[in-house]
């Protein structure tokens, strides 16, 4: 049992749950913007206006009677992802990576039947995964194929990049790699590996799984020290643009790098988790306070990304 004193945490500038909720989420995220990010369908539509690309939308299932259409549409596809529009924390997302006769192969390799997916759709519509249990719609998206440079680190599932954006400035980033424990999902609390990324250049810093520091990926066995993300600046600008699109002052931006289409926005999160600090080995508070004390904010996403790259170099 390890414990750390609150004073030490304070010195490290670790943002905690209560402070995040009271001082950042409640203060900088206006309530009316929540539906925008809590609904993936609306997010897709609104960020498109700001030149932020998302995975291609294949189908929207809104009603129970539309479920049979899903089977017709899915017949021609090899890979796709079914997501509840209002799901949170990766709940209810089913990723199909291939076909085997009538059966579908999940990212974990498990085979599921079409009735299984239909039941899943009907669960989504009934609101089983939605935030308040309200009726929901299911969206079917094109399967994202990660670039091999990153995909090789991840055990199944697509690695994604979480960037915390504060008042339009990218302040901290991490790469999330799926593991067996996380069932192909990239959520840290489900057991995915988080690799902290230097905002300055997109190079990896530390890695954690289940809040514990690691150096090798538990499944692929690859060293996590020397990962470098390409097109880093472009991704930071993309993340920064989401601020204009949603108006949320404090949010998590999840990006993936598709082998065909380049960086894509996967989803936005109005309540980003705190584990990113563990992956980076530093607290968020000093950076958040630095942004808060800026006398003259930058007005374009490009300027903000450039400022962040200049200011938040973790290697110094």
């Amino acid at each position, binding site marked *: 049992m*390890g414990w*750390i004193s*609150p004073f030490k945490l304070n010195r*490290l500038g*670790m943002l905690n749950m*209560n402070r995040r909720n009271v001082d950042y989420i409640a203060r900088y995220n206006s309530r009316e913007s929540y539906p925008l990010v809590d609904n993936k369908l609306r997010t897709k539509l609104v960020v498109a206006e700001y030149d932020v690309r998302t995975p291609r939308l294949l189908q929207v299932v809104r009603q129970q009677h539309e479920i049979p259409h899903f089977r017709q549409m899915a017949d021609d596809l090899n890979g796709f992802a079914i997501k509840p529009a209002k799901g949170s924390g990766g709940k209810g997302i089913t990723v199909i990576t291939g076909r085997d006769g009538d059966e579908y192969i999940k990212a974990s390799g498990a085979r599921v039947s079409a009735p299984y997916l239909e039941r899943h759709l009907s669960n989504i519509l009934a609101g*089983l995964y939605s935030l308040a249990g309200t009726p929901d719609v299911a969206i079917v998206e094109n399967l994202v194929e990660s670039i091999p440079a990153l995909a090789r680190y991840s055990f199944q599932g697509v690695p994604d990049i979480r960037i915390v954006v504060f008042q339009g400035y990218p302040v901290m980033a991490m790469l999330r790699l799926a593991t067996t424990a996380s069932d192909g999902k990239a959520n840290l609390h489900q057991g995915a590996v988080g690799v902290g990324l230097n905002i300055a250049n997109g190079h990896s810093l530390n890695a954690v799984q289940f*809040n514990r520091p690691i150096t090798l990926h538990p499944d692929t066995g690859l060293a996590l020290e020397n990962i470098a993300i390409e097109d880093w600046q472009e991704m930071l600008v993309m993340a920064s643009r989401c601020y204009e699109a949603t108006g949320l002052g404090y949010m998590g931006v999840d990006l993936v790098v598709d082998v065909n289409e380049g960086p894509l926005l996967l989803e936005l999160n109005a309540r980003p988790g705190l584990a990113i600090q*563990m992956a980076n080995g530093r607290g968020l508070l000093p950076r958040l306070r630095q942004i808060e004390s800026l006398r003259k904010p930058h007005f374009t996403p490009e300027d903000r990304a450039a400022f962040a790259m200049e200011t938040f170099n973790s290697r110094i």
Partner: protein
Amino acid sequence: MTSRSRIPFFFAILLLIAAGISIAVWRHVELGIPWFTGEQQPVWMVEARIDFTGTGEPVLASMNIPDQPPGFRILSEQAASPGYGFSIVEDSGVRRAEWSKRDVSGPQTLYFKVQLIPDEGGQRGNPRRRPKPEPTFWEEPQATAVEELLQQASSRSSTPESMTRELIKLLQPDASGQNTTLLVSNDNYIDLLNRMLNHAGIPARTADGLALEDARRRQQLRPFLQIYDGNKWLTFNPRTAEQGLPEDVLLWRQAATSLLDLVGGDDSEVSFSMLRQTVPALQLAQAQSTENGLGFLSLYQLPIEEQGMFRMLLLLPLGALIVAFMRIVVGIRTSGTFMPILIAVAFVQTTLIPGLIAFVSVVAIGLLMRGYLSSLNLLLVSRISALIILVIFITAGLSIAGYHMGFNTGMTVTFFPMVIIAWTIERMSILWEEEGAREVFVQGAGSLFVAVCAFLMMSAPLASHLTFNFPELHLAVLGLILLMGQYTGYKLSELRRFHPMKAYD
């Protein structure tokens, strides 16, 4: 930015907590509602008995009854007298109990009971009208003797009190003045004193006191002298000139009217008996709350059934406080925000161990059945509905099984809120599928732990006593909860969660 905007908030919180506590203290002082359960307070039960013989005519008996006796507070009054009409009349500041009946003959007995609480700080009602000395007329040779005695007393005194004391001394037989011997005879002593003081311009009257001793019967009233010093009536012992009322003396009659007026009867006699009782202080406070202006703040006036409901409802804020503390400060994960409170409320009715066993077994069986339901590919609403029915079956089954096995505790499962249990099962089952069994146990155990804490808090006798009798304390609870809503410090669980950060310090 943060500090400035929060000052009014903290001030409001402080105000809220202070208001809650001070109203409680105020009501404790004013109404005597005890802080703790089981506090006892003495109560004197005094019974006046009137005996007389009816002469075959209509009877009207009118007796003076205590009215704001110093050192006591009247809790209840009650008359017992079969066949008589009874009422309490108040006439120019004098309270009298009146019995009436037509055609009375033979020996009659009337009872009047009054319950009194010793109350040192009790308010002494000031006379409504300023009393004036009554005019007196003396015949010679008494007139001269009175003048001389009064002059003597007056020359040795400065105030109405000292004058009274001096006069009493002068009238004692051992003072052996001629004037004294002339004036005083045994049966007119107190009356004489009274008249002389009035003559001297000091309003005076005779009051009748009753020495309270436990379990005495057939007691008589003892006369006391009262003078008015311009502000209030002062009581003197007419023989010793001792000022003030001895402890445990109840002034039954203070106004200068007769103790008993009887029309239509002979041989009347009034006697008193008394008993010292102890009554729970809470019961006293409840009885008094109706008369007191502060009573509107209490729940005692509600029908008993509603009171019982409020007793339960008023415990909920404590549960909410525990849940808020556990989630915000300690950081325990629970399944469903306030599910633990509802479980705790059920525990209060089932008691802890049977409740825990029943709850865990219902949820466990429910989870097994939910496993089958999930393979049926049902819509959410119908799945939950089916689950509710299954939960009812499970509780019924457990009750019947428990009853046949001789455990009455089996039947206590019925106290659990069925819909909440159904939702809990549903949520846990989804949690199991998505996050694995470990998370189910973490959240399940967290919920149960919080529920048990809330139960321990809510089942403490002091907690239910304070919440019900001092509902205003909930203002303080509200303040604490609001305060916790502003807590931005680390949770206890985060000190553990972030401990790998030690490496980067």
